């Protein structure tokens, strides 16, 4: 007995159509099965808090629940009139400018120097990259000690040269610069490494051709190397600006935002209003205002980069 006789006749077209539909359903099931573990975490710990935070920003929610309930745009209005919010935002932008420029320029210079192929390459790479592997807490412990007004190494060296001690973390004029120096020391290794990797991808023939044309080392640097690195630079600037805008750890632990709020960053302000002042609604409203700013910055950078590459 063969199945061909028992089953009702079906056309070849029907078979493929049914099969295709079944295959499609099967693909959807398999696809979601593969994506599900990630998607569940993604929804639970990113989408849900993002939506919940937006809701919170329209409530008067506090730790005790007092004054909760919808308050419309009151939190946003208060945040926009809050001088501390503007001050923190200003500090954050200032930190971003102060940190991004040297973190790009100096990391490029370091990568170019190391890429010359001088003796001891692994040692140079190790020295500049090692701090990137440290936790912020360890970085801050090292640098609080370096900056210590009476016992720190920096003031100790200054004293040997007869210079007056500097209150690195307490002087309102100096504190932000100290935070930037620490940040530079800590994170330059990342940019340095990516520049170094990009430098090694520049084809050797380009240099040979340029050398035959009589271009000197400095000419080669500005007419071949730096233009070739433009995509890397664009990406690093984008990443660096977004990373600097989010600064929290080293400021919170080095200066706790002081002196007199001179170094308090916006993320620190969000943390303080949420976890010290327990004003969850207000804190969420600032988060969302800041998120809008981040989106605008990202869009602006995207536009600039695209226009550059189109030109």
């Amino acid at each position, binding site marked *: 007995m063969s199945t061909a006789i028992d089953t009702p006749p079906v056309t070849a077209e029907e078979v493929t159509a049914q099969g295709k539909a079944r295959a499609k359903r099967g693909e959807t099931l*398999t*696809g979601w099965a593969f994506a599900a573990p990630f998607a569940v975490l993604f929804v639970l*710990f990113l989408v849900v808090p*993002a939506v919940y*935070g937006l809701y919170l920003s329209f409530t008067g929610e506090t730790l005790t629940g007092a004054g909760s309930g919808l308050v419309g745009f009151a939190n946003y209005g208060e945040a926009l009139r809050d001088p501390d919010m503007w001050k923190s935002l200003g500090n954050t932008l200032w930190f971003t400018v102060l940190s991004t420029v040297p973190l790009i320029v100096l990391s490029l210079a370091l990568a170019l120097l190391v890429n010359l192929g001088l003796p001891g390459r692994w040692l140079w790479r190790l020295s500049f990259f090692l701090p990137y592997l440290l936790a912020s*807490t360890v970085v801050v412990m090292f640098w609080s000690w370096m900056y210590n007004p009476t016992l720190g190494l920096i003031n100790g*060296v200054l004293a040997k040269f007869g210079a007056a001690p500097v209150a690195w973390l307490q002087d309102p004029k100096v504190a932000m610069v100290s935070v930037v120096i620490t940040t530079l020391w800590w994170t330059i290794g990342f940019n340095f490494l990516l520049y170094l990797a990009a430098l090694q991808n520049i084809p050797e023939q380009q240099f040979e051709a340029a050398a035959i044309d009589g271009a000197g080392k400095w000419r080669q640097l500005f007419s071949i190397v730096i233009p070739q690195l433009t995509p890397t630079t664009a990406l690093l600037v984008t990443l660096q600006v977004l990373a600097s805008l989010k600064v929290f750890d080293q400021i919170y632990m080095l200066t706790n935002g002081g002196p007199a709020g001179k170094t308090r960053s916006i993320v620190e302000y969000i943390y303080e209003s949420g976890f010290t002042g327990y004003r969850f609604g207000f804190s969420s409203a600032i988060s969302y205002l800041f998120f809008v700013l981040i*989106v605008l910055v990202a869009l602006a950078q995207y536009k600039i980069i695209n226009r550059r590459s189109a030109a």
Partner: protein
Amino acid sequence: MSTYTLSRSGRGMKQTHKPGENPWSVSRMAALLVLAVLAATWLVPFAWSVLTSLKSEADAGASAITLNPPDGFSFDAYRKVLSAGDIPTWAWNSLLTSVAITVITVATSALAGYAFSRINFKGKRWLYAAIIAAIIIPPQLLIVPLFRQMLAFNLVDTYWGIILPQSFAPAMVLILKRFFDQIPVELEDAARVDGAGRLRVFWSVVLPLSRPILAAVAIFVFIGAWNNFLWPFIVTTDAHLMTLPVGLQTVKSAYGLQYAQNMASAILAALPLVVVFLFFQRQIIKGIATTGFGGQ
């Protein structure tokens, strides 16, 4: 130092200097000097902290620059910190949570990346767009709602509370998807003709080909998890559950004027990753370079 030893240690790198070029030229020596000064500057905070940690408390708190302290050097500060403090507990917590975060992130990212690369499923484009949009959301902005959520889930002061919100990485999904895109489909088709299911193909054909990129992602995620401060700081109040960065932050002020012990605990906390780095320098550097752009 001969150039021969150099080219040997610089395996896989460009030649140290071009033939016909004088390796001892004045400009190269000048560059070397600049590099040496910069590198020394970068190593000073390490060296100074190690030096302080080896002094007695009396010497460490006595004057700024003493290279030969009256009490000499010893490991006393380390002994005190290790016997009295919570550092071993925190190190264990850091290791446990970082390993869990790395394993879950790599597994979920690889599975999702494969689905995006190879399988045509309904809703794929929506999910993909959501992931790309999510890359721009800084996790720092979600601390308040996420903390309330963890309270509701009863996950505050638990390992899972530390682990779960850090166990997914949209950027890593994209990196792995891009890698899987480059693997020829024919390799999988051969196995599928033999009747192997998707999961089987993924496990026995795709994953073995992806070892280097998986290692790179794992390294990147592990370093980030080991060093993360803000989230573990918010979600743990119990000293027995703190990770190293959080725990150290709480005692940093408690040590007060005990500078040697303060520095000894910082060095102890830094040591594990530094040692791991010295052993796997090449892999780690390659891993950061390949995942870095998508990963920050």
